[in-house]
């Protein structure tokens, strides 16, 4: 029972930090968006399942190597973001299925938070808290960077280092998030909370704190829904998050 509570706390935190991170998506300018990054976590997550270790441990290096490859492909070929995203998607899913038969791959694709062991859960909670503190301290600089890289640089911000920190935070949260929503759906825990927050926020403070809050709530209610209905956890979180998102649009329109 205490393990379940620990895992729900982890779910809340990862969802909340992913939502917070979603309010500062720098990667609109690069191809390294959270969507394809999630898919790139799949081969590593699948390998980890084969060896019986936590998926995040395989997903993290897999993400970093792939992010570098995307960057290289785009630099060399100048292909559009859509094309690279499509290529990356099939490569990620294809390689994952090479390592792992599809009937055993469910955890990698749609998440499996209930089966994280106690030690992994505690370590992930700690890592997620560290990421949260880093993002909180750098939040203003990251927002400025997302508005305009040149303005940020003119104001004396080392944009290269800042982008690296951002990318590492994103990769960390997505790698841990693979446990919760699965590699196919990680984009949802980043994009849906911030999209919900955006339609009802009047200022930056509201936007960032609501992104955090909705991320956490979607995650908790999704996990509870999954436990009571026996449905996979990833899709359950998506159902809750989509309901919240559409409700926020209706709310914003009604004003």
């Amino acid at each position, binding site marked *: 029972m205490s393990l379940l509570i620990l895992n729900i706390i982890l779910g809340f935190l990862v969802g909340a930090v992913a939502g917070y991170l979603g309010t500062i998506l720098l990667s609109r300018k690069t191809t390294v968006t959270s969507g394809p990054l999630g898919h790139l976590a799949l081969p590593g997550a699948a390998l980890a399942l084969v060896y019986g270790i936590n998926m995040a441990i395989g997903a993290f290096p897999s993400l970093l190597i792939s992010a570098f490859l995307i960057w290289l492909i785009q630099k060399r070929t100048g292909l559009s973001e859509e094309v690279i995203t499509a290529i990356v998607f099939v490569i990620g899913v294809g390689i994952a299925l090479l390592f792992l038969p599809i009937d055993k791959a469910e955890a990698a694709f749609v998440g499996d938070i209930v089966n994280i062991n106690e030690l992994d859960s505690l370590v992930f909670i700690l890592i997620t808290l560290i990421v949260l503190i880093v993002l909180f301290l750098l939040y*203003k600089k990251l927002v400025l960077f997302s508005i*305009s890289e040149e303005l940020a640089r003119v104001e004396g911000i080392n944009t290269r280092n800042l982008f690296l920190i951002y990318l590492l935070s994103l990769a960390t949260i997505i790698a841990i998030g693979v446990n919760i929503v699965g590699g196919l759906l990680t984009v949802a825990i980043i994009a849906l909370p911030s999209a919900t927050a955006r339609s009802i926020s009047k200022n930056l403070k509201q936007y960032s704190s609501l992104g955090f809050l909705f991320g956490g709530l979607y995650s908790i209610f999704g996990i509870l829904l999954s436990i009571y209905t026996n449905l996979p956890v990833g899709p359950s979180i998506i159902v809750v998050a989509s309901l919240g998102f559409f409700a926020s649009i209706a709310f914003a329109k009604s004003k």
Partner: protein
Amino acid sequence: MENSTILEVKDLNVKIGNEEILKDISFELKKGEILAVIGPNGAGKTTLLKTLLGEYEYSGSIEFKEGIKIGYVPQRFGYIKDIPMKVKEFFELKNVSLQDAAKILKELDLSEQILEKSIKDLSSGQFQRVLIAWVLSSNPDLILFDEPMEGIDLKAQKSVYKCLYDLKKKNTSIILITHDLDVVYKFVDKCLCVNKVKVCYGKPSSLNKETLQKLYGGEVKLYKHTHEF
């Protein structure tokens, strides 16, 4: 480099991919001077500013006076209107006090109340002035303006002109991309005409019909304004 010189550019070449964007550009800027960069669309004017800011690789030399603080007013902003943000929060991103922000906004004919407005609700003229105020709040010694009059109404343009004039009086150096030759004759100390290569460089009074035709191609009507601002 002379003591009063704050920027010296020599034989600047910029290539992006295989395309040569700028070739053999040289100029210098002294303290308190305004340099206008003119030229047709696609001539590499914005690339020149961004190269000065360190965005692109180049050959040749770009030398700033040591310890100089640069400000930059870009022409287009990608995502600022996507983020829910009040004007005062925009200033808080770089920890400018609201009193200082209000003071600078006032110089650009904007009232203090604008600090409480959402960025996305601003008109383009208001936004442009907020942006200029934001850049000025760091007290830069040199400001790069990329077409600050583009797409804003006459009233806002007048405030921006006045601001340029005040900056000049305070001995701030300015590099200004503009299509407005009127501005060039009124405010500017030096003019650099660019169309991938340097077409002309010198005092605005040395700009003549032939140079402008060479720069823009085709017939150009030239009006000289003699009235003072």
